[in-house]
């Protein structure tokens, strides 16, 4: 603080508060250290002349009184702006530009006529002075609004178990019944499982972000139906059949139904962890690199869970299990749903359609080869089947699809924008 401004003012020779705006700016620019309210030098200058209420801290606290602009005679005011600054300290400290202070001051009843008491032309210039004078701790850790990580909730977490339970009940029912009753049990059970899957996926972490997404349910049903019946049908077709309706292989499909629960839990784990990392990361690149292992880890966790379930189902039903096709199908479906849940509906729909189309094409090619002169059509499928068995066709199709989606999701699901909460606006 310099005494120059005081000397320059002829009107108020006995008051150090007699600075005009320019000299104050000049002084503020000269020593950046802002004065604390009621600090030593100020009281020293005035000494006993300082009246009690002039010390800003001694004002009546309370929300109502805090906005009273000091309306004191000029002579006793040391630095009225400082008192004002003290009253609106929080407003001034959090402001990001002078206009914010101006708006806040006006909301507290400060008008241009009040500003004139602080020797300012208007509220804007008063706000500019306040903005310039209040120390602002720029490097302070900002209170980040963490996008709240979704909490695991009982409804979807338990609902996730329903498809598996219904599937197991259906398989058991079909096993202990015969003839037409068996068919009815199987049909009703399938319908129930389908509805349960739909219910389980419609809430929780695999809920679709966008209601208007293109439907993929048809392709999914086809892929699962192929997993149940396709191998038998293909085998029959290659051997000249089918002479009888193909028998279903329930182990793989049952394991998939049971894996709804681990899929939802894995998706929840991924979403929650990704959100939490969002708050901690400083840059987009950094975030992407930190989410990538998370995605792959979650994916691997699901595959491990599915493998375990497959082994369990195989042992329980006493059937051989087609690991390759079930695992690839499970991976494909999980990734497709995870992508769709984060708003990327385009690629999963395409890939599911192509995969289902490839499987259908393999079957159609075998049947078409029976037409005269079309023997060539069945050659690729036959070669594949003789080399690796009938399961090779869906395993290859789903495996390619899953790999494509995995590559795609490692690029898209690691983006920060994929994890933005939809109502993140303020």
């Amino acid at each position, binding site marked *: 603080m310099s005494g120059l401004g005081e000397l320059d003012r002829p009107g108020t020779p006995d008051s150090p508060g007699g600075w005009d705006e320019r000299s104050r700016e000049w002084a503020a620019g000269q020593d950046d250290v802002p004065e604390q309210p009621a600090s030593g030098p100020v009281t020293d200058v005035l000494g006993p002349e300082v009246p009690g209420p002039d010390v800003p801290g001694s004002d009546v606290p309370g929300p*109502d009184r805090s*906005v*009273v602009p000091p*309306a004191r005679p000029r002579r006793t005011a040391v630095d009225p702006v400082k008192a004002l600054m003290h009253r609106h300290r929080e407003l001034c400290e*959090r402001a*990001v*530009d002078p*206009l*914010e202070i101006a*708006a*806040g001051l*006006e*909301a*507290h*009843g400060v*008008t*241009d*006529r009040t500003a004139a008491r602080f020797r300012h032309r*208007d509220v*804007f210039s008063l706000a500019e002075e306040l903005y310039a004078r209040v120390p602002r701790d*720029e*490097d302070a850790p*900002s*209170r*980040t*609004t*963490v*996008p709240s990580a979704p909490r695991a909730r009982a409804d979807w977490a338990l609902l996730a178990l329903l498809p598996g339970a219904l599937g197991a009940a259906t398989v058991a029912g079909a096993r202990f019944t015969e003839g037409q009753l068996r068919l009815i049990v199987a049909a009703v059970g399938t319908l129930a499982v389908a509805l349960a899957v739909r219910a389980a996926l419609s809430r929780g972490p695999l809920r679709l972000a*966008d209601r*208007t997404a293109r439907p993929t349910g048809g392709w999914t049903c086809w892929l699962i139906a192929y997993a149940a019946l396709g191998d038998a049908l293909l085998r029959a077709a290659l051997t000249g059949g089918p002479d009888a309706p193909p028998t279903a292989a329930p182990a793989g499909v049952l394991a998939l139904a049971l894996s709804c629960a681990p899929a939802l839990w894995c998706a929840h784990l991924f979403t929650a962890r990704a959100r939490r990392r*969002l*708050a901690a*990361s*400083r*840059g*987009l690149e950094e*975030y992407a690199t930190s989410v990538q292992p998370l995605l792959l880890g979650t994916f691997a966790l699901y595959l491990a869970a599915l493998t375990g379930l497959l082994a369990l189902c195989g042992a329980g039903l006493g059937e051989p299990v087609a690991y390759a096709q079930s695992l690839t199908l499970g991976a494909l479906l999980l990734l497709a749903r995870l992508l769709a849940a984060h708003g990327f509906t*385009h690629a999963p729909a395409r890939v599911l359609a192509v995969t289902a189309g490839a499987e259908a094409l393999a079957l159609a090619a075998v049947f078409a080869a029976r037409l005269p002169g079309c023997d060539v059509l069945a050659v690729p499928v036959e070669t594949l089947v003789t080399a690796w068995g009938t399961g090779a066709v869906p395993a290859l199709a789903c495996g390619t699809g899953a790999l494509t989606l995995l590559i795609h999701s490692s690029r898209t699901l690691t*983006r*920060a*924008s*994929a994890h*933005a909460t939809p109502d*993140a*606006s*303020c």
Partner: protein
Amino acid sequence: MRIGLLTEGGYPYVSGDARLWCDRLVRGLGQHEFDVYALSRSERQEEEGWVPLPPQVCRVRTAPLWSAEEDGVVYGRRARRRFVEHYGALADVLCAGGEGPRAGDARSGGVSAAEADRFGSALYGLAELARDEGGLAGALRSETAVRALERACRAPGALRTARTARVPELLTVAAHLERALRPLSLDWYEGDSLGAVDLCHAASGGPAALPGLLARHFFGVPLLVTEYGVRLRTHYLAAGDAPPAVRALLAAFHGRLAAEIYARAEVITPGNAHARRWQEHCGADRAKLRTVYPGMDASRFSEVGEGPDSADPETLVWVGRVEPTKDLVSLLHAFAEIRKEEPKTRLRIVGAPSAGEGEAYLGHCKALAAQLFPDEADGLHAVGDNPVSFEEIGGPELPTSADAYAAGAVTVLSSVVEGFPISLVESMLCGRATVSTDVGAVVEVIGGTGLVVPPRNPRALAEACVALLRDPERRERLGAAARARALELFTVEQNVAAFHGIYLEIVARCPVRRVVLDETGEPLPFAVPAEAHVPGRWTGPAVRLMARGRPGWAAGPPVRATSRVAVEGAR
């Protein structure tokens, strides 16, 4: 002439902000056609429906601001490059800091003007992209946008607060920008919609004026912006508890948008001097500013205002919505002082508590009144009564607000914060002398026709009230002057007439130059004769402004105080 009325969360929705004003404007200017382009603010608002529309509203097009429809367009390489270029420029401008909102201010000259120019071209670039390719909503939410924001924040020379932005803040800013730029993706910018109007009138700043800006950009349609409350200020007050980086970037966006709107608008009409100061500060050219006061329906108050003074000469009235900013506590303390001088005085506080903290505040005030003033009775055998009464409009004693004003000799306004004080204008229309605190637009409204005291000063308030209570002649004189002033400045008629004049002025000065094509698609030379721009052609042949309820000799645009008072007196 055809006027495109642009609103946001307002007319024609039932729960709209400025629907009353817009409705009066549209009904008052029946000789023009109105196309209403309304942005709705919430799903609830849309469900509540519209107000009944007069026949001069030819078409209404609405769009939701609260939801974004993705049209599923995925940008190809060229479109994406275009998007990155424009969005990046926008982000750069927002992060550049400096003298953001004060583009037109003298202190920040050339640099800011260039920045404002970049902001404008980025905005129009995005709008052109949305018009050509669609899919802007998806792109604004995509990683490309967030990446561009991050790059701008990390660039050298960026704002210090912007540099602290982390990923969540970037996402928040991107989401908010997407929301704010939703009007860019609308399908209103065609030759037969906003391209066909002669004038765009934005009923508020901010998002409502954005379609007007684009119509001006695409078709050269002149833009008129009316702001009764400054949108930028509302944004600052509503910014809430967001992190500093978010607030800084969004403040920069809204500041620059406001500056762009003010720069491109042909005429800006603030509702009071306070809004005008903000607009000037945000870069509005003074030559474009015309203050148009909001109009009030004077007929409700004419009976009280014209009639004989039936008021109890010892009653003070306070009318308004009970909330802490009205500072009734200070009024009660002042009333205690008044009672020391004039023991027979009564105070009637008329108003309903506002939602939220109003109830608690009203209870507090009632308790304080009971504490300060014990019940008193005329004699030993009468039932006592408190000199301060709390009432609400609509009861048997005070069926209308005019009755409330009529009940008192002096109207008191004790607010500490006030925008445009409606209750003060109503009291002026009732011809009552007023004592008010010096806040908001009070001084501007009251002029010299009432007493003004500093806020939070019960003693000054008391002294002014006592002075008026003791001087019935002065009260009458001030009341008459107040009514004359209110009739001159704050009636619906003056509001509508002012806008009518401004419409004609704009259309005369900067008409839309449309190129007329012949059958083969070639421009037709001299298709639009010069006379087409004469404003006289646009007005209807027989309809004259304000022809209803007004004698023929007063049909011209009323500007002078004398004629206006004479008109009121002739009713």
